[in-house]
């Protein structure tokens, strides 16, 4: 059987993941420039399930509000558009990512937990450097590995060859994917993100999060910062060990990219970072638990 081509794989992806109708309507307008918080809130409000999901998230430890939020109107007033948007993406990500991905050794729930952990880590890292919009690295990290979901259905017969090549040629897993298949899960993910009409910053993060130094030369410092924050969050997630697949730690840290955004990844920095991130465990678990549907509890 011939190897699948990138075009074949992307063609086989549906326009959008199989989302409930309200989530689909929201995802269609979420990044349009003329969409307001009120418009978003109105669509959410009309769907009991989506309303329930958003309110559960609002009231989880991840958002830390001192009083209970009971309506979408309240959520919009308190959270603002940026945070509401990232919550909607969290709900969409749960539908899309909470599946097993056998090709990469990911059991049911692994990719979802990995993605949400990386998202929470990315937001923490963004706040650490006083990024003006920490919700953006959060969302980018959440969706960074959608390519694994898609390529996971095809990579199985080639997986061992890819892994052997990483050690033989001393290259990262994603480079070895490229050598064996002609493309890697990041490129697949970026093409899928384009198909889903995701914003360019998310497409670029999905494509370059394992090697931010390879961002195109015309990329802005702001774009480099987002992609590099997600890269660092990704590496930390692998090290702490939340839901990584069989590709595990077969990646290197892009020290040059970190230096470009003012982070000197030395001994003390990495260890103090791990020490902080591990303490976010209860918040992540609360967020994951708050998103469980009735059948999963």
């Amino acid at each position, binding site marked *: 059987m011939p190897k699948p081509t990138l075009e074949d794989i992307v063609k086989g992806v549906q326009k959008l993941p199989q989302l409930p109708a309200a989530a689909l309507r929201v995802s269609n307008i979420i990044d349009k420039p003329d969409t307001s918080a009120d418009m978003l809130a109105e669509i959410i409000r009309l769907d009991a399930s989506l309303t329930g999901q958003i309110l559960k998230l609002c009231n989880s430890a991840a958002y830390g509000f001192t009083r209970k939020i009971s309506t979408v109107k309240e959520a919009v007033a308190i959270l603002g558009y940026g945070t509401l948007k990232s919550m909607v993406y969290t709900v969409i990500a749960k539908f899309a990512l909470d599946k097993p991905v056998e090709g990469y050794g990911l059991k049911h729930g692994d990719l979802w937990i990995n993605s949400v952990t990386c998202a929470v880590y990315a937001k923490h890292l963004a706040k650490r450097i006083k990024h003006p919009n920490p919700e953006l690295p959060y969302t980018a990290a959440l969706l960074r590995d959608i390519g694994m979901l898609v390529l996971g259905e095809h990579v199985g017969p080639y997986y061992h060859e890819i892994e052997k090549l990483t050690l033989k040629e001393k290259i990262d897993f994603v480079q070895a994917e490229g050598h064996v298949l002609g493309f890697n899960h990041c490129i697949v993910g970026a093409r899928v993100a384009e198909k889903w009409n995701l914003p360019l910053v998310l497409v670029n993060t999905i494509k370059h999060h394992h090697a931010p130094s390879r961002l195109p030369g015309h990329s802005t410092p702001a774009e480099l910062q987002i992609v590099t924050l997600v890269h660092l969050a990704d590496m930390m997630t692998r090290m702490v*060990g939340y839901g990584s697949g069989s590709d595990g730690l077969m990646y290197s840290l892009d020290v040059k990219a970190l230096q470009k955004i003012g982070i000197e*990844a030395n001994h003390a920095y990495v260890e103090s970072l791990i020490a902080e991130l591990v303490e976010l465990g209860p918040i992540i678990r609360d967020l994951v638990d708050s998103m469980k549907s009735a059948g999963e509890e």
Partner: protein
Amino acid sequence: MPVQQQIETVEPGEIRISSSPETIFAIPNLGTGVALAIYDNTLPVGAIAHIVLPESTLTNTHADELPGKYANLAIPALLEKFTEAGGQKRNSVVRIVGGAQLFNFGGGGGNILNIGARNATAIRAGMSKHGFVIQKADTGGNKGKSLQFILSTGQLIVCPIGGHEYPL
């Protein structure tokens, strides 16, 4: 009658102990962290720490931090719990699992990312100071591992992510 099993997940930085044969301690994914498991088969009693860093001196530690985060603090805490529950050194089996490592092919990171190996080394040294030898170790490599510590038998079942499980 078969024993009703109770699975308890041991998150990064946690220490758990049990004297109940129904208990199975589980770690779904060890990255650079190392699981330190000690078992006294005469009682039985088992204790486990999910350690993520070798020592606490490089960072500012706080009283309310997770007790099992640093090897130098986790080991005395684990052994205290083990002893309080009746566990004895002469009957104990000590095993460690995990300590994987990121690649460093491009020179990115260098020894700063050798945390997995340093965790394993710190645990060996720390346990040795208390007179314990690590009887079995499954550390290193570039893949995460899951483990189950079954208290009814003392078995440690290890599984590389995407691979096949085996007893340690």
